[in-house]
């Protein structure tokens, strides 16, 4: 009976996908200048990203099982994307379109690590991670 239950469990896991991302350890990258004692992060899959003028509304399902959301706004679009990275490198205006598919939806499997600082003068930094590249 245990063997059957184990088999069913393994198959169900294969349908759900892997939680192995939950077994990583992150290093704080150099471009995050927040005092580490005031720092936290969200790492996971993006479930919503919408641009409205000079603001971006996003939501993320973290790898450790929480749902988080935030809105990033700036005086200009350049100011907003200055808080973005793409796989660790500086984000350009042309990179924005890479987050979306041809139908204008954010790409399936789009992930991010979002660095959040308690200090008011340190805005969040979003390190986008494109799927399948």
């Amino acid at each position: 009976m245990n063997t059957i239950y184990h088999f069913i469990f393994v198959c169900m896991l294969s349908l759900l996908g892997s939680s192995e991302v939950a077994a990583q350890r992150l290093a704080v990258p150099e471009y995050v200048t927040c005092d580490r004692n005031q720092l936290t992060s969200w790492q996971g899959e993006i479930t919503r990203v919408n641009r409205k003028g000079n603001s971006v509304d996003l939501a993320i399902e973290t790898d450790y099982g929480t749902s988080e959301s935030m809105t990033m706004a700036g005086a200009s679009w350049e100011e907003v994307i200055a808080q973005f990275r793409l796989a660790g490198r500086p984000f350009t205006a042309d990179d924005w379109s890479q987050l979306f598919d041809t139908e204008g939806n954010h790409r399936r499997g789009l992930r991010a690590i979002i660095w959040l600082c308690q200090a008011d003068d340190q805005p969040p930094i979003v390190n986008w991670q494109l799927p399948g590249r």
Partner: protein
Amino acid sequence: MKKTALSVSIKTVLSLCLLASPGVALAQSGAAMDNANNNAKFKRCGTKHPSIQEAALKEQHFTAMRGKPGGGDDGGYTPRPAGSVSVDVHFHVITDSSNNGALSSGEINSQMAVLNDAYAGTPFTFNLVATTVTANNAWYNVGYNTSAEQQMKTALRQGDAGTLNIYAANIGDGLLGWATFPSSYASAPLDDGVVILTDSMPGGDAAPYNEGDTLTHEVGHWLGLYHTFQGGCSGSGDYVADTPAEKSPAYGCPVGRDSCTKGKNAAGLDPITNFMDYTDDSCMYEFSEGQSARADEQSNTYRGL
């Protein structure tokens, strides 16, 4: 076997697994993409459901699988004595063609000493049985869940479910390391093991993460432990009762941090000194008794240790 509803259910499950498993499809498409792009090194978890659901599923399975009289999730399991469970370790050093990443036996022994010190007081001791050295540029910069990782592990992994394989390389994506859980061995035995950034070892360059605690942390996962911030402030958290709930990862060494004031297990300051948080190596120095017991049970249930 009698023809019962259970038999029909097995057929249905078999059909689902063989015909509809997205895990297999994702792996195939992922491999194709890797081959088409030599710089492919981005994570590709393919997670379709919140991981909290998967964690709950794993716990249900764990409860069903662990053998003790009466079953249940707190059936009076007696942890094994400190130091009574010896884990064989195969340490794989990955260098590039210019020998970057090479390690001396002294450096490896220092890392093993840190690991054994961290687990003193738990049932586990770690016994280095073999070291390999492989020069491979693709593996040297191995990324999480890439074909390079798959090839590396397929070529090098030794032993069975109870054998700890450690791969030290110049890993990318801003990661210090990653590991596989005990419950994953059955479905992916060759993937089983721990990967760490070489510079996270004692004396490496990855300050403030260069005292060897990345391996301690990742072996914690290998033994079945979640991060202390698993689940945030709600739900079952990391499934360990004596680690206070934590809303999100802590970095540095934020003494007095208390990110959860409501919810199950919210009482107590954040466990910033726990090896399963994300604080600096110099800040983390302990496992809880509950974590030791969980690791003991998980390794016994899934790894035959």
